[in-house]
């Protein structure tokens, strides 16, 4: 298996020395709305709660803004799991954005199942901005889920393509 994405950032003549850990960690995207979700993530930080470093948060005005194409695009590019985090139902700052996001996420899950990628790689959750521990819990769960499902096969095929072309 090719080296983990983030290791490439640690190459160079003056790179800081760290012990190399070559275990595969899934690459997870958490789409977080600007209100509750982003704040819950920040609170997890100020409470120093720990979660795996393979998680990248992408900040979005509202979960209702997340386009189906972006979720599918992220999987196509290699995401092993995606979490869509919005405000609690009824608490969306844009009234119903999170409800539409939920419907959209359900549709994408179905597509993922259909194409064999696994609908479990995508999850939509609703959190309030003080639910930092729940946020971390969801992160840990999606990481576990992605680990159980194994690396995104689209990423593997992409890698073998690029390896072949070299």
């Amino acid at each position, binding site marked *: 298996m090719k080296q983990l994405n983030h290791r490439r950032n640690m190459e160079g003549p003056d790179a800081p020395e760290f012990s190399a850990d070559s275990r595969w960690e899934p690459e997870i995207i958490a789409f977080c709305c600007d209100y509750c979700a982003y704040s819950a993530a*920040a609170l997890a930080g100020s409470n120093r709660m720990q979660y795996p470093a393979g998680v990248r948060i992408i900040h979005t005005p509202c979960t209702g803004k997340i386009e189906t194409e972006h979720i599918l695009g992220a999987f196509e590019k290699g995401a092993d799991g995606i979490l869509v985090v919005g405000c609690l139902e009824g608490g969306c700052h844009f009234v119903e954005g999170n409800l539409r996001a939920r419907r959209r996420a359900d549709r994408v899950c179905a597509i993922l199942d259909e194409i064999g990628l696994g609908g479990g790689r995508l999850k939509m959750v609703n959190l309030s901005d003080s639910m930092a521990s729940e946020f971390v819990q969801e992160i840990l769960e999606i990481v576990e889920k992605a680990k159980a499902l194994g690396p995104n096969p689209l990423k593997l095929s992409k890698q073998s393509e690029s390896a072949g072309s070299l």
Partner: protein
Amino acid sequence: MQRQKHCKRAGETPALPAKLKNFNMEKIQQTETIGAVLVCGAGIAGIQASLDLAESGFKVYLLEPTAAIGGHMAQLDKTYPTDDCAMCILSPRLVECARNRNIEIITLADIEEFSGRPGHFKVKIRQNPRYIDIKKCDACGDCAQVCPVDIPSEFDCGIGTRKAVFRPYPQAIPNVFSISKSAGQAPCKSYCPAGVNVQGFIALAAAGKFSEAYELIRQRCPLPAVSARICPHPCESKCNRSEIDAAVSACDLEGFVADHIHKNPDKYPAFAQPAAKLDRKIAVIGGGPAGLTAAADLACMGYQVTIFEAKPDLGGMLRYGIPDYRLPRKILDEEIRCILQLGIEVKTDSPITKPADLLRPGVKNGDTSPRPGFDAVFVATGAWLGRKPGIPGDDASGVREGLDFLYEINTGKTPEIGPRVLVIGNTDLALDAARCARRLPDVKSVSLACLEGAGELRVDPRRLAEAVEEGVDFRYGLGPTRIEAASGKAIGVTFRACTSVFDEFKRFDPLFDDSATSSIPADTVILTSGRAVNLLRSGLETRPGGRILADQDTLATSIKGIFAGGDAVLGPASMVDAMAQGHRAAESIDAFIRGAASIRSTSVSRASNAASTISSAKLAPRPKNSRFEIRDSRSGEKRSPNLESRISNLESAIAEARRCLACGLCSECMQCVKACSAGAVLHDQQPATVEIEVGSVILAPGFEESPLSEDFGGGRYANVLSSLQFERMLSASGPAGRIRRPSDGVEAKRIAFIQCVRGRDAAGDYCSSICCMNTAKEALAALEHMDGGQLDITIFGREVKAVGKDFDRYIDRVRSEKNVSYIRAFPSRLQEAAQTRNLKIRYRSPKGIEQEQEFDLVVLGSGLQVSAGVKQMAAQLGVQLNPFGFVQTGRFSPLTASQPGIYVAGAFQEPKDIPESVAQASGAAACAMGQLTTVRGTLAQRHEYPWERDVADEPPRIGVFVCHCGHNIASVVDVEWVARKAAKMADVYYAEANMYTCSDSNQQHIKAMIRKHRLNRLVVASCSSRTHEVLFQETLRESALNQYLFVMTNIRDQCSWVHKNDPAAATAKAVDLVSMAVARARHLKAFPLNELEVTASALILGGGLAGMTAGLSIADQGFKVRLVEKEAVLGGLMRNIQSTLERDDVQAQLNDLISKTLSHPNITVYLNSNLVRTSGQVGNFTSVLETEGKEKSVDHGVVIVATGGRERNTEKFLHGRNRHVMTQGALEAAMAGNSLPEELRGKKSAIVVMVQCVESRDEKNPYCSRVCCSEAVKNALELKRRLPDCSIVILNRDIRTYGFRDMYSRKAREQGIRFVRYSEHDEPTVAEEKGRLKIRVAETADGDLLLKPDLLVLSTGISPAEGNPALSAVLRSALTPDGYFLEAHPKLRPVDLANEGEFLCGLAHSPRLMDETIAQAQAAAGRASRVLSKSKLEVAGQVSYVNPAECVACATCVKVCPYGAPIINVLGKSEIQGAKCMGCGSCVAACPAKAIALQHQESRTIMAVLDEMFAGGG
């Protein structure tokens, strides 16, 4: 100087934000009226008022007595009736407040002086110290991590603890820490002569930080292990803990800490090296405790110190006066060795008789230039001469002087001594001599005789007990008269009885009884009566008796450059006194050499040095936990009680230290100072005074929870909580997170809520209005917490007052919960079960049966009250309070205080919930705006930015700034590496890492780099964009760049903090996050903030009380108003109301209002008119009005919906069929003037029955109309006044009079008006029999009730206006299921409609009373002024836009948008009206043709980020 006038400062005010400086003083001079408002209290009401004012062109000072804004709302878990998370909705308001440049938040402040007149008040504000530099603190929390002091958290209402350095909650604004210190010192610290920070080292010991504790002790006591053994520890004498059980064993802890360090030399804290070695030499004469202390202090300051000691070894009296068993020599040697490590030179066996000889020539004449010789001398030679008492026979052989005796023993000699020893004296020296004698081999008996009676001896009782244990025979109350001798050898001593030692002033003045004599035989008599100083030829001036004369404060002697201290000055004193003198000498020698007038103190000073006392309330909740009994650990030891093992191990030391009550709050252990890499801790900060000038004041100081009733176990039973405490327990951010019983931590399974425990029945007649709903909310939240586990909730209360919008539905939800039962009863008793600490509640059921139930936890709804501090503030401002302590206002002017120019809002006005408080806040803001309308904009700033550079054609040139954030990021992430990697990324032209990228100086630096490298995009990798994005955007705008050419990536909250155990992964991720941000930056485009012209006029729909009040408020502010009324006259429902409960004349008020409205030059009234259609958006609406068939188009900037409501009609209860049945409205109309309804005229003893909730709170109208109970009580009282003999019965389901109105239902009861409850399932039945009414009520207690009234009055409630559905369609504003207009947010935007620029008030919102309508109308005016006051509206540029070429006009966007922003335009394409778009992007994701994009969030930027994330590696 002009600035000085407006903003005077006294003293240092490091905590004040810089914003205070920015004033336009010339304008103030011209106008005299000040365009600034002081808002007192920064709860939700204060915050709302500030935001409205600041957004409408006024400068605001937001004053808050605590460390952060947010008030009680921040403490709430959820808010009813929507169950919104309180913090979620509050937090954005807090940030908005912090960011607004016209709001100056002044925390930890209160009003000191208040003067002036409306329009121009002068306010002196006392700024209490925060002890943290607000500008430097970045809220990393490192200080709290190291703080050893735990104190009960006020924010968590005492159910959790916090550190002495703290932030109330993570979202707190200002987002900085603060330190709490009590007004005075901890008594232990203040009673230590040497100033040892006793509380500090105990706190550190409690945290297991022994090394730090040792270091802290050593700052004021260079010989910790020594002093622990011999100090009389005055610190323990005033310990507050002794009020509970026994003082904390400070001395033993000191000993344990010191010994622990001695046993573990690797933990020995090295002395801090002096900042600079000074080329100045100091001589210290005498190596005792005073000399050593001074030498250590001076060496730490950098001086070169030489100690001259006459004896062979250092230590002075410690070595030669104290026996080895009390102070082991190896400990003394070790600690002296440590001090000498500071580089102190020692010359032993070097007696100095003339100190002046050591001085370098010239010093005495004031020449202080450095040259060979000593620059100053400290004389601390001690008091070594024994003094004989002068009694006959004291020259016999066998009579010895005590000190000589000890000196012999301590120098290893065996003194010649007889078998019977008698020691005479009352000091430690006598005790030591006796005990030493007892240890000598040939001694058979040792007696000690003293003047004092038993128990009067001023020595350590422990040492006394040890001496007794060792067999010293104490003879009390004896004064020696002669020493008997035979052949020159002592054989005994004759005594007379001493009857008292001290006079009434506790001065030494012994009285003797000469007749009572006795004698004690002795071979050796040891006298310890006193010591003198042997410095006869020193050349220094002395007092009689040989003590050196030295200045009390500076210790300067008669010779310049020579200082003296210790026993040589004081006479025999304790070691701790000697050390105190050593410190003082060092400080004044330093000042002398620096030539400074003032002495720099080596310890932290406080506002007051007095010892702080702790109130008994604070002492109460501590578990009793007796002091570690030292004797227990040494049982069996008889002869040589050794201090080595007082506290036996680490655990017992920590347990003992944890008994400390932290009286000083902060212990000043200085750990935070060391931990803070930003250097933000300022322990020496002092209070400061700021003077401001304002035109108006808004009081919104809020409430405090009333204390728990002691009858119901408040303060006595651990498992009885207040409502707020329970709320904190429920809160996700609270200390518990679960519902645990405080007594044992077990999860509660049975919870009881008892309502109205104080609010109505004890201290006041008023109802706190919020408790019923709050309890219901807490009950639901508690059930949610159980995740399906078993939890039973019982709510005891006589009534449920759910009077707000949608409240009854909420109560129905709670009632339908099978686990919640409402019991309509008020408990008679609450008792705690001794074993289980469960709580038994006894009550009488509605059927009259005594019952008892047991619960695990009880929550008391004790209601709200005004705090003492707020009452004091009101007095300072000359504001009148009502009998309950709330502010006095009128029902027609609910927001105006008795003092002109001062307005009020929130719970201080009357207990109320959040939306009503928020509405009042906006209303109070409108009142202030009306008063200050001529000076609007004079002090508010508008920032001018340079002309924006067009970068559209430039290739991206990105600058990357990576923040260390102190070590918050840098300790985990290798930020320098991240910056180096960033520099190599494509399009990055500059990258660097900074310590604090957000600091002011770095903003200047970033600007310089933008200029130097011609950067056109900026990436900052640091913390949260929520808090810091605007800051950097401002920097961009000031650098002539568009603010949207900026990306912030969070490598702290999302990287270093959450991956702190994996630096490699965190660093790699940080690089990744930066590269993703750079990828995004590459694709960013500039786009302008949209600016819209504003039509400064308002369209108000409805000419009733709400419409007219709002109209006048807006018109008074100078804006045009168009008031549209569908009827031919103004007044609406108010025309039917005669008086208020308080008997104010409503019609007079109405006439006044109508004439003001009609005559106001800014108001145009359109009678008989309706709104037909409206178009446009906030700032620019165009509406068409129809007046009697004619249409007219008007332009306006805002709309206010004030269309009112109507009294509901009914056919129930024979209404309309029997003329004796009428509505409350009809009754009131019939009582106009002084008349009576026809049915009652001439009848003296008429019977009137009123029925409440007719066609209300049922399936058809499932809401409470709020006003009916008050109306019924009002009409009943009025009837009773006019017909005193009539009988009135009010049939009701609950009596929902709330707030101060509740006292009128009590008054009604007192006047004999009967309240009879009926069940909602069993309504009264009305029949007509021979024209006479018969009412049957199924009553619970006494069976059925049959009434035959002369008049039946129905409270039918309020219905929404008929025109609401049509108007809702015209305005595109939703209605609630009940038919009222739906506000934008039920809690925080109560008078806004969802569409920007549209507002609502009065009955259009929900049923309400007149004062509430007035407040809401003023609120709508205040909110509207935010728009109307601006000549141009700046609209966020981040809006959606349509690519017309792609649009298929399917109108999906029109359906999806919650704000009505997209329209299908004349070209048949969708078009998004920028001003209405909120930038959520819902339309973007929904558009099937992908024709819509959201600015700044275009697909290309997101895809670029994803590409970057998976590039290469993925």
